[in-house]
C-alpha cells in the first residue's frame, strides 16, 4: 500500500449556505504530482486552502503525514504554498524573501546563507538576491515564490495556478521546469489549474472536479481514454458524444440506438440491453465515409474544414444540430462543404460512458 502523505476524508465545506466541497475523499501519495482540475468556482482553491490551513473544513478529516491537522495553524503544518499572485513581500529583497521561512525559524545565519544559495541555484536566480520583487519579471517572481516555499523543505507543496499570470510561451517553459523540479526533489506537488493541457502535461494523476465533487481521479492517460462522465469527456480534450440506449450486447460489442435516431456500436463493458449509454469518440479517431457503414447509421453534413498547421479540423453537424469534430493530419480532397457523410468508428476507439447520475 502506497503511503498517503495527504488524506481528506468526507470533507465538507460550506460558505454560508453555499456547499462548496461535498463529501470529498482524496488520498494523495508521497512524491506524486497531483493536479486539481476543474472550471472556475468548482472549489480547487478551497481544497488547497483547507490543506494549508487558511480555511477550516466545516466537517471531515484532513491528515498530513498521517496526522490530523484540522486544529493546527498554517505555520504548524509541514506544507507550503505558492500563491497565484506570488505574494512576495514587497519590502524585502529576493534574498530576504527566500530566507523568510528560515529566519522566522531562527536558523543560524550561516546555514540560512547556504540554503538560500542552494535555492537560488535551484531556480536559476543567482545574482538576483539584492533585488526587490517589483524589479523582477513575472517569471522571475514566480521562481522566487517557488524558492521561498521550498526552502522549508516541505513534505507537500501546494500550488494555486502558479503560472496563471504568465504568457503562453513562458508558461510552457515553466511547466517543464516545475515538473523537473518536482521529480528532482521528490516532493509531493498538489497543483491547481483550470487549464486541461497544463494538467495533462505535468500530472501523475488528475482529479477532475465539478461543483465541489471529484468526478474522476486517475492518470492523464486513463482520464483521456476512459472519461468517467460526459463532463470529464468534454473537459479533458475534445470529444464527440453520442447518447443512446443499448439494444443488444454481443460479447464486448454493444449495439445501441441513438436517442435522436440512428444506430451505433462500440466495445464497452458492463452494459445490458435497455441501459443508457454515451459513446465518447475523440476527433482524431472519428471516422467517416460517403456511404453508410455496417452497424452505423449516423448522418452528418460537413460545415467547414480549417487548417491549423498541425492538422485539418473538419466540422460537421448532425440533423439535431450537434456539432461533430473530426481531426486529420492530411487533407481529404473528396469532401466539401455541404456534403453528406456517414459517421463511424472502430469498436475500440469509442468509450462507453454510463449516464452519470
Amino acid at each position, binding site marked *: 500500500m502506497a503511503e498517503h502523505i495527504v488524506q481528506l476524508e468526507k470533507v465538507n465545506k460550506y460558505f454560508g449556505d453555499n456547499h462548496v466541497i461535498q463529501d470529498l475523499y482524496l488520498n494523495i501519495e508521497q512524491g506524486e504530482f497531483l493536479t486539481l482540475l476543474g472550471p472556475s468556482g468548482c472549489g480547487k482553491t478551497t481544497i488547497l486552502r483547507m490543506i494549508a490551513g487558511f480555511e477550516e473544513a466545516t466537517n471531515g478529516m484532513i491528515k498530513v503525514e498521517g496526522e490530523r491537522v484540522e486544529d493546527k*495553524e*498554517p*505555520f504548524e503544518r509541514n506544507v507550503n*504554498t505558492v*500563491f497565484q499572485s506570488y*505574494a512576495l*513581500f514587497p519590502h524585502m529583497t529576493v534574498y530576504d524573501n527566500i530566507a523568510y521561512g528560515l529566519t*522566522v525559524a531562527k536558523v543560524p545565519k550561516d546555514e540560512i546563507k547556504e540554503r538560500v544559495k542552494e535555492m537560488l541555484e535551484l531556480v536559476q536566480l543567482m545574482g538576483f538576491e539584492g533585488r526587490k520583487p517589483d524589479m523582477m519579471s513575472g517569471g522571475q517572481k514566480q521562481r522566487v515564490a517557488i524558492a521561498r*516555499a521550498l526552502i*522549508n523543505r516541505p513534505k507537500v507543496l501546494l500550488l494555486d495556478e502558479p503560472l496563471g499570470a504568465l504568457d503562453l510561451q513562458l508558461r510552457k517553459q515553466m511547466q517543464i521546469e516545475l515538473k523537473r523540479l518536482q521529480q528532482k526533489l521528490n516532493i509531493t506537488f498538489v497543483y491547481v489549474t483550470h487549464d486541461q493541457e497544463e494538467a495533462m502535461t505535468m500530472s501523475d494523476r488528475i482529479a477532475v472536479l465539478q461543483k465541489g465533487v471529484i468526478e474522476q481521479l486517475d492518470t492523464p492517460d486513463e482520464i483521456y481514454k476512459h472519461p468517467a462522465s460526459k463532463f470529464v469527456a468534454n473537459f479533458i480534450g475534445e470529444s464527440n458524444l453520442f447518447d443512446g440506449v443499448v439494444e443488444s450486447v454481443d460479447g464486448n460489442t454493444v449495439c445501441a440506438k441513438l436517442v435522436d435516431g440512428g444506430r451505433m456500436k462500440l466495445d464497452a463493458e458492463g452494459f445490458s440491453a435497455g441501459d443508457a449509454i454515451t459513446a465518447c469518440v475523440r476527433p482524431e479517431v472519428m471516422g467517416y465515409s460517403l456511404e453508410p457503414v455496417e452497424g452505423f447509421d449516423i448522418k452528418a453534413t460537413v460545415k467547414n474544414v480549417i487548417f491549423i498547421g498541425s492538422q485539418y479540423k473538419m466540422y460537421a453537424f448532425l440533423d439535431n444540430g450537434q456539432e461533430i469534430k473530426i481531426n486529420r493530419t492530411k487533407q481529404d480532397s473528396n469532401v466539401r462543404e455541404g456534403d453528406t457523410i456517414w459517421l463511424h468508428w472502430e469498436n475500440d476507439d469509442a468509450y462507453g460512458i454510463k449516464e452519470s447520475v
Partner: protein
Amino acid sequence: MEDTIKTKRMSWGRRNAPAIATAGPVSFWMIVFVLLPMIYVVVISFMSRNVYGGIDFTFTLANYKEMMEPLYLKVIWKSFKLAVLTTVICLLLGYPLAYYIAGKPSATAAKLIMLVMIPYWTNSLVRLYSYNLLGATNGPINNFLLKIGAIEAPLDLLYSDGIVIVGLLTAMLPFSVLPLYTSIEKLDKSLLEASKDLGANAFTTFRKVTIPLTMPGIVGCILLVFIPSLGMYYVPEALGGGKVMLIGSLIRNQFLVTKNWPFGASLAILMILMTLIMMWIYTRVASLDDLEEVF
C-alpha cells in the same frame, strides 16, 4: 540678434504656458500668504523688542538664548512630552481600530469611518467646554463615582495634564485613524497568509510584515497627530485652565498678551524646526507617492 532672443523668450513662455496657468496662481498664493510671512517671522525672531511692545530692527540672538531659560525649557519639554504621549496613545488606540475597520467589507468600513469622524465635525470648543462641565468637581462623573462609593471625595479631574491629553486625543484620534486605515486597507492579505504559511506565528507576522508595510500610515499618523498636538493651544487653555502652560499658549501670549513678537517668533521657529525634523524622518521612511496618498 534682439529678435532671436525675443522669439526664444516667447517660445519659453508659450511652452510653459500651461504650467504657469495651473501652478501660477497657487505659487502666487503660497508666496504671498505662506513664504513671505514665514520669512518675516524668521527675520523678527532675530530682532529685539522695543519698550512699547513693537519691534526694534537690530539684530540679536537674545530671543533664542531666552528660550534656554529653565522656565521656558520646562514649557517646551512639557509640550513635547504631551505631544509625544498623545501621539503614542493615538497610535495604540488608532491602529487596532483602523485594523478592525479595514477588515470589514467596504460598505461597513465607510460607515465606521464616518463614526470615527463625527467628533471631528462637532465644534471643538463646545466639545471641550462640555468636558469641563462633565469633569467639574460637582459634575456628573464625580457625582456618579461618589454615589456608587468608588471615591470618598470628588476627584480633581480638570486642570491636569491628564485631561489635556484626553482633549488632545479626542481632537486627534480621527486624524490618526485615517492614514492608518488607508495603509492597512491597502495591505495585501495574501502576504499575511504567505508569512503564516512559511512558519511565522501571528506576532512575528505582525512585526515582520504588517508593521513594515503599514509604516507610511504609521508615520503619517505620527505627523498628523504630533504636529498639531504640539501647537494646539486652545485645548490646554480650555481644559488646563491656564495651569497647564504649553508652547502653543506661550507663543500666543508672546504675540497677543506680552507683545514680545520677536520672542514669540523665535518660539514659532523652534516649533517649525521640530515639525521639519518630523517631516524629514517621514520622507526617509515613506516614499513621496505614499505621502500623497496619506494626505
